[in-house]
C-alpha cells in the first residue's frame, strides 16, 4: 500500500508571540534568583526560607540516573522566572491584547463561555487571567492562582503546602519548591460538591523558560471536585523545562478528580511530581494524558492512608519521533480495604519510545486491599519501542493484585477490514488508535475529548507510509 507520507508538520500550536514580559530573572539558578522571585511576589519570610532550603537541597541532590536521559538539560541555561505583565487580569477585557491573542489561538475564551466555571490561565509564570463564577464563590470554594492564595489565605496555605510532597522528595520537587510560580490553589469546604469542572490552561511562551507551577488542592470531608488542565507549548530550538508539583489532600469521604492533557512541544523536558493523599473512604482519580515533549517522566501517585480509600489512574502516553515517555502510576495501600486501579494506554510511532513504569505498594496494615493494573501498548511501526516496568511491594498476605499487560500492533487484518468498508489506510489506522485510547477519552469532559481527538488526528498525520 504505497502512499506518500506527508511531511512532518510543524508543531501545531508552535506559533510564537512577541515577548511582552516586563520582568525576567537572569539565566541560571542562584540564591539571588530565588530571593528575587520571592521579593517580586512580596512573599512572607517563611516562604523565602522554604525556597532557600529547597534550593540547597536541589544543589546537593544528584540527578536521577533512571528513567530517561537528562544529560541534555542545562540548569544554567534556563530562565527561572518571567512575569508577563504588570498585574493579574481579573476580567477578560483587562488582559493585554497580545496575550489574549495567544489564548485566542488556543480557543480559550470560547471554551470558557461554554464550559468554564472559573478560568485560571497561566501564561508564562504568572497567572494573568483568573475569574471565578459567583456560584462557586457562594459555595465557599476557593479557586485561585497559587501566588494569590498565598497572599489571601496564608494560614490555610501554610497548613498544607509541602505536606504531601516535601521539597526533599526528589531533585525536581526541590527545584520546583525553590522557584515555583503560579499554578492553581483549590479549597473545597466540607460537604460541598460541584459538578462543573474547574479548569486552567498552561502555556510556556518564552525561550528556555522553565515553568514551575505549583498546585495545591484540598478537598475537605465529604466534598467533591473535578479539576481540569490542558497544556500546549510552542516550538523552540533550545530545550525548555517544565517541572511542576501537584499536591492533593482528599479528606474523609471526599472525592477529587484531576484531569490533565499535556501536549508539549518536542523540545520540552516534562518532569512532574504529582501526589495525592486519601483519608478514609476518600477517592482520588488521576486522568493523565501525555502527548509530545522530548522526555516526560511522570508517575502520579496516590497514598491510600485511610480505610476504604480508593485510587484510580487512567493514563495515556504517546511518543513520536525522538520522544521518550516514561510514565506510569504509583499506588500506596497503607490501610485496610483500600482499592486501586491503574489503566495505562500508550502508543509509540515513528521511532518513539514509551515506557510504563509503575509501583503498587501494600503496607502491613493493608488487609483486604485490592489493586488492578492494566497496561496496554500499541506499536505503530517497526522503529518504535515500548517497555513495561511494574514494581510490586507486598508486605501483607491478605491482599489481591491483578496485573495485565498487553503489547499489540495494528494488525493487517484490522486494516483490511476497515479499508474494505471504504476508510483510507490513514483513517483506518486513526480509528484503531482512537479505539485503543477510548477508555481514556471517554473520561474527559466533552470539549477535551474533542480536542484530544483533534490532537490524535494531528499526531497521526504523517505516521502512515
Amino acid at each position: 500500500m504505497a502512499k506518500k507520507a506527508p511531511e512532518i508538520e510543524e508543531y501545531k500550536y508552535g506559533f510564537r508571540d512577541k515577548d511582552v514580559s516586563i520582568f525576567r530573572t537572569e539565566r541560571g539558578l542562584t540564591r539571588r534568583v530565588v530571593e528575587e522571585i520571592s521579593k517580586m511576589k512580596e512573599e512572607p519570610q517563611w516562604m523565602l526560607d522554604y525556597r532557600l532550603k529547597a534550593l540547597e537541597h536541589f544543589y546537593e541532590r544528584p540527578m536521577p540516573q533512571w528513567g530517561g536521559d537528562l544529560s541534555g538539560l542545562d540548569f544554567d541555561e534556563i530562565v527561572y522566572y518571567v512575569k508577563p505583565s504588570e498585574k493579574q487580569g481579573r476580567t477578560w477585557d483587562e488582559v493585554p491584547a497580545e496575550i489574549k491573542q495567544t489564548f485566542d489561538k488556543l480557543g480559550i475564551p470560547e471554551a470558557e463561555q461554554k464550559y468554564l466555571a472559573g478560568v485560571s490561565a497561566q501564561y508564562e509564570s504568572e497567572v494573568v487571567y483568573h475569574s471565578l463564577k459567583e456560584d462557586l464563590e457562594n459555595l465557599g470554594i476557593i479557586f485561585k492562582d497559587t501566588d494569590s492564595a498565598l497572599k489571601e489565605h496564608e494560614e490555610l496555605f501554610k497548613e498544607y503546602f509541602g505536606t504531601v510532597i516535601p521539597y526533599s522528595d526528589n531533585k525536581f520537587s526541590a527545584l520546583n519548591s525553590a522557584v515555583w510560580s503560579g499554578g492553581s490553589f483549590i479549597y473545597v469546604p466540607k460537604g460541598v460538591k460541584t459538578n462543573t469542572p474547574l479548569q486552567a490552561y498552561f502555556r510556556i511562551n518564552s525561550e528556555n523558560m522553565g515553568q514551575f507551577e505549583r498546585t495545591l488542592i484540598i478537598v475537605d470531608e465529604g466534598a467533591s471536585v473535578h479539576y481540569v488542565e490542558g497544556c500546549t507549548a510552542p516550538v523552540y530550538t533550545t530545550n525548555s523545562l517544565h517541572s511542576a508539583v501537584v499536591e492533593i489532600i482528599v479528606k474523609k469521604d471526599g472525592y477529587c478528580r484531576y484531569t490533565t492533557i499535556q501536549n508539549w512541544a518536542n523540545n520540552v523536558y516534562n518532569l512532574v511530581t504529582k501526589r495525592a493523599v486519601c483519608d478514609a473512604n476518600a477517592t482520588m482519580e488521576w486522568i493523565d494524558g501525555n502527548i509530545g515533549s522530548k522526555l516526560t517522566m511522570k508517575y502520579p501517585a496516590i497514598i491510600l492512608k485511610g480505610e476504604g480509600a480508593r485510587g484510580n489512574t487512567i493514563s495515556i502516553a504517546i511518543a513520536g519521533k525522538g520522544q521518550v515517555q516514561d510514565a506510569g502510576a504509583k499506588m500506596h495501600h497503607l490501610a485496610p480495604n483500600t482499592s486501586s486501579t491503574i489503566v495505562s494506554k500508550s502508543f509509540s510511532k515513528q521511532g518513539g519510545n514509551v515506557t510504563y513504569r509503575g509501583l503498587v505498594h501494600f503496607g502491613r496494615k493493608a488487609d483486604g486491599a485490592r489493586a488492578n493494573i492494566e497496561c496496554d501498548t500499541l506499536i505503530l511501526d517497526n522503529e518504535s519501542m515500548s517497555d513495561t516496568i511494574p514494581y510490586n511491594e507486598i508486605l501483607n498476605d491478605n491482599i489481591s493484585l491483578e496485573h495485565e499487560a498487553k503489547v499489540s500492533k495494528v494488525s493487517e487484518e484490522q486494516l483490511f477490514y476497515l479499508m474494505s468498508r471504504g476508510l483510507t489506510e490513514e483513517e483506518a489506522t486513526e480509528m484503531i488508535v482512537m479505539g485503543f485510547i477510548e477508555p481514556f477519552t471517554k473520561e474527559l469532559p466533552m470539549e477535551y475529548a474533542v480536542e484530544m481527538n483533534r490532537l490524535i488526528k494531528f499526531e497521526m498525520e504523517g505516521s502512515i507510509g
Partner: protein
Amino acid sequence: MAGSTLEIKNLHVSIEGKEILKGVDLTVKGGEFHAIMGPNGTGKSTLASAIMGHPKYEVTEGSILLDGEDVLEMEVDERARAGLFLAMQYPSEISGVTTSDFLRSAINARREEGDEIPLMKFIKGLDSDLDFLEIDKSMATRYLNEGFSGGEKKRNEILQLMQLKPEIAILDEIDSGLDIDALKVVSKGINKMRSEDFGCLIITHYQRLLNYITPDFVHVMMQGRVVKSGGPELAQRLEAEGYDWIKEELGIEDETVEQNA
C-alpha cells in the same frame, strides 16, 4: 442494464508463492445472485479476498474489472468506494470503536466532504435495519465485533451490507456457524438487497443457505478453477448427490488446491 458489472478473467492468485487460483473466469452483473460452491480448500475464500484486495494475496495473472475499471490498480478502500463489499468469514474486532461510529464513518467515506449523512437520518436508517435483522439495539453502542458471538458477527456483516448499499457484494461463508433462525434472518437481509442495482456473489459450501436465497447462477469451484456452472438446480443436485459426480465427470481425483490452502 442497471447496476454494475464485475468481470473476472483468467484470475491467478498466489499466497506466499503458492498458486491457489489457477484461472478463474466469472462475471457478476447488477440484479444477479451468483453462488459459488465447492468443497473446502478449493480456493473459494481466496477468490473473495483477492477481489477485495487483501495484501496477502498476490494476483499473478488475469484481470478484475468493475464497470470496465481496473480493480487490481485500486487500493482496498478505493475498491470499497467503487462499489465492492466483502462480508467476511472472520471479521476483525475493533476495540473502543462502536458499531454505529464505525458505520457512520464508513457511510461518510463514500460521500463527498460536506455531504455527510445527517445524524438523524443515519440513526433512523440504522434503527430500521437493526429491527429488520432482529438485532438488539445495544449492538450499535457495542465495540465493533468485540465479544460478539459468531452469529452476531455475521448479522453485523449483513447490517453493514444493508447500511453501505454496495453495487456488488461478496459474501464469504456468511452461513457458517449460524443456527437455523439466524440463517433465516441473515438470508432475509440479503434478499432485501435484491434489486437491479445490486449484484451478489455468495460463497458457501452448504446448499442449506440456498434454500433461503435463490441464486440465479451456481458455480462449482475445484482445484482453483470454476469447473461447472448452472442454475439453481445445480445446487440441488449437489445437495442430493455431493461433489463426487462432478469429479468423475471431469476426471478430477483430488479437488483441493494442494493441502488445504
